[in-house]
């Protein structure tokens, strides 16, 4: 009798084990997000994008890798917009929380810190919200950048400005941080090549609260265009004071800040300000997988009651790219997923994604292209229009 019970149990075990559809596990993805501190505004948008992706993936059954299906579990902590917290928390995510894959924090400075930890532990990290290229030129093997590099940020602004005024006098006014310095360095060369005059170059501390002295310098330099900015808080203040002090700029392109829907709260000061953007809701890329921009925008707006900017789309796309790599490799093995990412050349709602496999710049984004958007008044309301490149524009540039 005893033997027959054991045999019966054994038969059940044999019968149950080969049913792959029931083998569902959890895939833990770790990251930090700046829920507090100066990067909170943009980082929150990135988090929302990631959360929307997680909810949709789990609602559709999870990520399929070979015979297994994985529900996505996000583990995240507040990095307080500080490098020291990123260092501690990424170590914790890997060592204690056993995160199998990583997303990056927001901003180039924090990405650089997180990358040191992820490489030490050999974990694949999709970086979103970090455009500085230097991090990818340090021999990292498991880092994959979603954004266009910093050198691309203001290329469209220089081209569009040259088209409007080939003799423009440009003031470069930018925050003194790794990302903006990298953008500024590359853009200065582009401006010189385009024949524009560099009237002024000023960097400012991220904690700057009053831009009056800088704006007086801009006025004294007789510049008629201003390129620069940094992150949200300083960019919004600079835009407001440029307007209030009637600085006479015919063209202003600022990094990051004008991309946020919050920027419209500046009212008239926001009008005419342009922003290089990794993505805008109006883009019409035909995705190889995942939703298109319109479907994503609709789902995001329904869930969070606010239209997504590129930080949100970047967060969502980071999830899509990792999901695709896992599904294509049929495994959650780090080496296999990294190999899949290395050969990836796909289009999602975020645009084209292709990572450099050159050992000198491994993981650098070489497929994605940026657009230039500008706040314009339409029927009394401020709206963001794509003004560059010409083939993607939804309105003419205001100059």
């Amino acid at each position, binding site marked *: 009798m005893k033997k027959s019970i054991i045999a019966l149990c054994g038969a059940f075990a044999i019968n149950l084990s080969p049913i792959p559809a029931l083998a569902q596990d959890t895939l833990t993805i770790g990251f930090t997000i700046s*829920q*507090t*501190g*100066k990067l*909170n*505004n943009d980082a*929150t948008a990135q988090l929302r994008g990631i959360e929307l992706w997680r909810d949709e993936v789990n609602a559709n059954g999870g990520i399929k890798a070979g015979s297994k299906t994985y529900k996505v579990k996000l583990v995240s902590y507040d990095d307080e917009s500080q490098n020291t917290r990123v260092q501690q928390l990424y170590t914790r995510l890997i060592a204690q929380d056993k995160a199998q894959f990583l997303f990056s924090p927001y901003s180039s400075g924090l990405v650089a810190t997180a990358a040191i930890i992820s490489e030490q532990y050999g974990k694949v990290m999709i970086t979103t919200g970090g455009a500085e290229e230097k991090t990818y030129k340090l021999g990292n093997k498991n880092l994959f950048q979603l954004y266009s590099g910093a050198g691309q940020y203001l290329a469209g602004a220089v081209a569009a400005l040259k088209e409007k005024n080939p003799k423009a006098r440009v003031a470069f006014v930018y925050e*003194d941080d790794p990302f903006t310095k990298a953008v500024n360095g590359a853009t200065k060369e582009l401006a010189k090549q385009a024949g524009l005059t560099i009237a002024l170059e*000023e*960097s*400012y*501390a991220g*904690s*700057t*609260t*009053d831009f*009056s*002295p*800088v704006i*007086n*310098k801009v*006025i*004294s330099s007789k510049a008629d265009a201003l390129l620069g900015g940094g992150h*949200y*808080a300083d960019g*919004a*203040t600079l835009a*407001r*004071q440029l307007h*209030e*002090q*009637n600085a*006479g700029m015919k063209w202003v392109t600022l990094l990051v800040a004008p991309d946020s829907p*919050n920027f419209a*709260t*500046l*009212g008239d*000061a926001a009008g005419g300000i342009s922003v290089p953007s990794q993505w805008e809701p109006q883009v019409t890329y035909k995705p190889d997988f995942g939703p298109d921009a319109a479907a994503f925008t609709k789902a995001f707006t329904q869930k969070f009651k606010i239209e997504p900017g590129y930080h949100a789309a970047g967060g969502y796309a980071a999830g899509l790219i990792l999901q695709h790599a896992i599904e294509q490799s049929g495994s959650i093995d780090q080496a296999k997923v990294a190999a899949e990412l290395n050969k990836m050349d796909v289009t999602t709602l975020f645009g084209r994604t292709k990572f450099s496999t050159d050992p000198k710049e491994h993981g650098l984004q070489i497929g994605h292209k940026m657009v230039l958007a500008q706040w314009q008044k339409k029927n009394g309301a401020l709206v963001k229009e794509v003004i560059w490149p010409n083939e993607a524009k939804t309105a003419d540039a205001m100059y």
Partner: protein
Amino acid sequence: MIGILASVIDGVLVGSVYGLAAMGLTLIWGVMNVINLAHGAIIVLGMFVLYLVATALGLPPYGAIPITIALGFALGVALYWIAVHRMIGRPALMSLLSTFAVNMVLIGLGTALWTTSPYNVPVAMPGVAWQGYTFTGTHIMAAALAALIAALLYLLLYRTRIGKAIRAVANNREGAELSGIPTSRILSLAFGLGVALAGVSGTLIATLFPFTILSGEAYQLKSFVVTVLGGLGNPAGALIGGVALGLIEGLATPFMPVSWIPIVEFGLFVLCLIAFPHGIFALKRS
């Protein structure tokens, strides 16, 4: 040359608001030897009063000033009895820790209420244009109101019985007590006044620039520099110190990268501490 002059004028205008912010800090230090590390957080609360008054209640922005003064005073008196009173006369570290704790609580509550997202209160006020440079109406108004509030504080301190009592307690608490002055009540009033000044400076700053719940730190640091320039414990000196700081910022900016300005400011701070440990315009205390 005109550009330098424009920068100097802008510096003086903003400096007077820095001076007002520092007056709150220096008044509290002067009367009870407490360095209020919640100063920055209170400045930010003043900013949010403007936001609530102008945006949520739809009142004129400058209508927030009396509301901030009243709320700030009440908050200050409450904070004194909750967190400061038992620290008076104890080692300075005790009151530093206590006010730092208050700072963390206020920032934490503020973050929960408003997140760390930026807020902007547009204030329409015609400015003055001169040789291509514009001095905004909000800057001129803020400077004028800062001077007015400083003058009212002067009148309160030097022309009223309460002011006389505050000065008496600042000079010699035991002597004041022997003369029948209720010193603890006067200390709470002085703390309330200091907090009200910090709050109203925040309200004025918020008419000039966008802000977040974390903006107070920068203004608290400036307040320390201004306090040292103007003399520890001397409210009138704080206003002069604020204007001096603005003047230095305005004068230095045309000649060096703006990212160097904090180095100049804090270099000056260290030099002042070495040469004048109690500040340039320090009051003589008996």
